[in-house]
């Protein structure tokens, strides 16, 4: 019965979305405030209906109701409860349901908390949001019904892919989707503004918290996915430039550009049509990601059950939403007036460079990701574009961006004093150079680019801290006064400092773990000793252990350094009989300085397994934990900025010239 309730709730949600697509929009055109206000209740109703459907599906997973095809295909009665729940979004249908749930949540969020937004803009925005949910709800109901039944009911399920049975990955899709789909509301705001034909500083202010929320979740989602790949796949890498990783990374890059260009729109009333375009493109790239992952267009390690028919439907949705919004943009954007003027040396110019580099980088990743499709279509040749391409093109664009990030916050709006800035940063440039040299002295044998990158990362870290110190006049005034100043500093400023410093820290992690990684793949027999970095790793034995729904071979490795015992590692190789697949569970000794990472691969040969000979992969990845620490700082920085009082109250600042026309909120 519950699955039917879920399906019925989905149908009701679709009906509500259809009404919401039309009524508030018409109301805004005719000035009918009753119609406009209907968006509030219909947004909430949509969230409730989809929430019911989601709960119904989750219930089917929790009680292992194998009469539901989706549960049968993706769950198993012996699976731990956490993964039964996570199984709800483990499949194509379930994850799409999560997709629309988050879509509705953002709509309802604006309806509930966007009380400072003018009623007409809000009505239009929510209508546009309802267009998107109409598209995806109908897709869900017509092609990917999560509540389909099987008859006769099977005795037990097929189990979820064991690789996905992991805590980190259970949380990865919800966060990633929250970010991905969160950009939908920014898109809706942009389209509503285009329809209205009016965009000003206030618009940028209203959109900012939603952009930040989406950006934060996307950052966390990508970091979590990368962390999962690092410890679960057993290769010891954290980023593979796989198409599916790229499609989550592109909205992040463009979303980052959007965050920064929206600041210019907000503070200086400039970059207006550019901000709108970024808002549209960011969500378009999210949609593109959904399309690529679910249509089987490209080869990837991640894939859902692929179905060209579904691909065609999503492509249709893409055509309507992206095509429609960009056509609207082509029509309306030229009429937008440019705002405040600025000189080539100013904060605006700095942010312009930031945007150019981020957009170009996004374009490069997009091109590299789709290049195999292009060549196959044009010449029939199959090629694959791998890390060498992305590393060779992406990194050279990011380095100048990071250099700029150190300077940008020192620049003042309109016209900046470059000389003064250089005077302040001279000392830091010297320190950064020394850091590069010191790295060379300590760890020779890395590529030259690595030393340069270390210097640039240190530059960003110090320049960011310096900027913060200048703001609170640290060391210039008594400490109590500096603390008082720090308290009075808007939270957004602290947020920026934290996020920029986070990027510098993460960058040190990227560099350390790629340039100075050591890797050994060896055959081992009990008693073999492998030397890696400063460690001696002794392979003791492998024993067979039983888990709830798997059988594992667990190796025992004794790690010592200069004769002293350090730790014991237990890498596992698990085989899941129901799902008929195996996973590696790497054992990691984590320290701030680096990770010692061991994973057990297949036995050296079938007969060798009996003699206890195995293939072992041991890695030492310096500074790799800086990546996760830096990512956490990025997210926290976003959170600090989001909690800024100015965003919630929407009080006009003195600096912004065009304060919003006082519009009654409701």
């Amino acid at each position: 019965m519950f699955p039917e309730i879920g399906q019925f709730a989905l149908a009701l949600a679709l009906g509500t979305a259809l009404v919401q697509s039309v009524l508030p929009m018409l109301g805004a055109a005719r000035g009918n405030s009753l119609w406009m206000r209907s968006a509030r209740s219909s947004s909430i109703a949509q969230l409730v209906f989809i929430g019911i459907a989601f709960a119904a599906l989750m219930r089917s997973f929790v009680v292992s109701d194998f009469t539901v095809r989706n549960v049968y295909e993706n769950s198993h009665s012996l699976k731990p409860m956490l993964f039964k729940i996570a199984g709800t979004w483990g499949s194509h249908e379930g994850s799409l349901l999560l997709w629309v749930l988050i879509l509705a949540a953002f709509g309802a969020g604006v309806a509930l908390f966007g009380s400072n937004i003018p009623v007409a803009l809000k009505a239009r925005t929510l209508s546009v949001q309802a267009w998107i949910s109409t598209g995806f709800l109908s897709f869900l109901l017509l092609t990917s019904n999560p509540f389909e039944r099987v008859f006769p009911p099977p005795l037990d399920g097929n189990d979820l892919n064991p690789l996905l049975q992991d805590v980190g990955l259970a949380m990865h899709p919800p966060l990633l989707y929250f970010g991905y789909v969160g950009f939908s509301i920014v898109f809706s705001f942009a389209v509503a503004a285009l329809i209205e034909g009016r965009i000003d500083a206030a618009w940028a202010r209203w959109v900012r918290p939603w952009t930040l929320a989406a950006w934060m979740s996307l950052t966390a989602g990508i970091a979590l996915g990368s962390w999962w790949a690092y410890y679960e796949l057993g290769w010891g890498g954290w980023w593979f430039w796989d198409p599916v990783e790229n499609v989550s990374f592109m909205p992040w890059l463009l979303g980052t550009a959007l965050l920064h260009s929206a600041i210019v729109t907000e503070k200086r009333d400039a970059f207006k049509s550019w901000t709108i375009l970024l808002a549209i493109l960011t969500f378009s790239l999210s949609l593109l990601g959904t399309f690529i992952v679910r249509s089987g267009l490209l080869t990837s390690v991640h894939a859902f059950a692929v179905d060209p028919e579904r691909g065609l439907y999503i492509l249709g949705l893409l055509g309507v939403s992206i095509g429609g919004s960009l056509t609207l943009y082509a029509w309306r954007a030229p009429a937008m007036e440019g705002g405040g003027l600025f000189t080539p040396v100013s904060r605006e110019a700095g942010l312009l460079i930031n945007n150019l580099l981020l957009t170009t980088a996004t374009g490069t990743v997009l091109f590299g990701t789709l290049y195999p499709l292009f060549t196959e279509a044009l010449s029939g040749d199959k090629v694959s574009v791998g890390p060498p391409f992305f590393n060779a093109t992406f990194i050279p664009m990011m380095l100048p961006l990071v250099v700029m990030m150190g300077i940008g916050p020192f620049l003042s709006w309109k016209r900046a004093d470059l000389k003064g800035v250089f005077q302040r940063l001279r000392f830091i440039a010297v320190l950064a150079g020394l850091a590069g040299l010191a790295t060379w002295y300590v760890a020779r044998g890395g590529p030259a680019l690595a030393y340069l990158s270390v210097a640039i990362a240190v530059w960003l870290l110090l320049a960011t801290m310096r900027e913060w110190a200048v703001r609170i006049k640290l060391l210039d005034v008594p400490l109590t006064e500096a603390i008082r100043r720090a308290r009075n500093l808007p939270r957004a400023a602290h947020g920026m400092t934290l996020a920029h410093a986070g990027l510098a820290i993460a960058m040190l992690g990227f560099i350390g773990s790629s340039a100075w990684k050591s890797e050994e793949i060896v055959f081992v027999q009990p008693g073999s000793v492998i030397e890696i970095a400063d460690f001696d790793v002794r392979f003791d034995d492998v024993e067979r252990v039983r888990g709830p729904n798997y059988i594992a071979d667990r190796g025992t490795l004794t790690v010592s350094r200069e004769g002293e015992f350090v730790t014991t590692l237990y890498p596992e190789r698990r085989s899941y009989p129901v799902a008929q697949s195996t996973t590696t569970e790497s054992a990691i000794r984590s320290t701030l300085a680096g990770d010692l990472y061991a994973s057990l691969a297949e036995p050296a040969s079938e007969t060798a397994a009996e003699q206890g000979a195995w293939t072992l992969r041991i890695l030492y990845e310096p500074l790799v934990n800086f990546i996760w620490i830096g990512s956490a700082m990025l997210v926290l920085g976003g959170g600090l900025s989001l909690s800024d009082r100015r965003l919630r109250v929407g009080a006009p600042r003195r600096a912004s010239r065009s304060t919003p026309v006082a519009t009654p909120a409701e």
Partner: protein
Amino acid sequence: MKRAIATLPILIALVFGAFFLWGLNPDRDPNAIPSVLISQPAPDFDLPAVESIGVPGLSREDLFGNSDPVVVNVFASWCVPCRAEHAVLTRMVERDGVRLFGINYKDKPEDARAWLQNLGNPYERIGSDLSGRAGIEWGISGVPETFIVAGDDTVLYRYVGPVVGAEAEEKFATALAQARTRNGGNS
């Protein structure tokens, strides 16, 4: 000018859309790695034997006039997965009576010899491809790779990577069974 720039995004999006539409063609499998050799005669090559190993070398002539399809495996002693694959190949030879030829790719003869002495030699013939030239002719992308060649030296099937694990072995066995019926039909 302004209008032209504002129209640019939609034009680019349309071009992308056209490619996507093409890419959705249901007959297209982006995962398939095509081999130029499939359904073609085996490439021309002539490899000497690995010194004092007890089996002869391998050339194209050896692939011609066999009554049953043969398996050509490219291996090396330095290749880790080859070691795991070795047991599978040995079983194929011993249990299923498969005729197995080897191409010892970029391997020192003494290493190859030690390796085969250690693990056993299931190969009927082994050509020593020290320079890697034959590997290029066969178009291999790495070691190991395994080919099924029909009696008339037509290459029927190519497997990239080690034939290890239930799924891979079944895939390979199916291909081999198909090759055998095709051969039976011909003769």
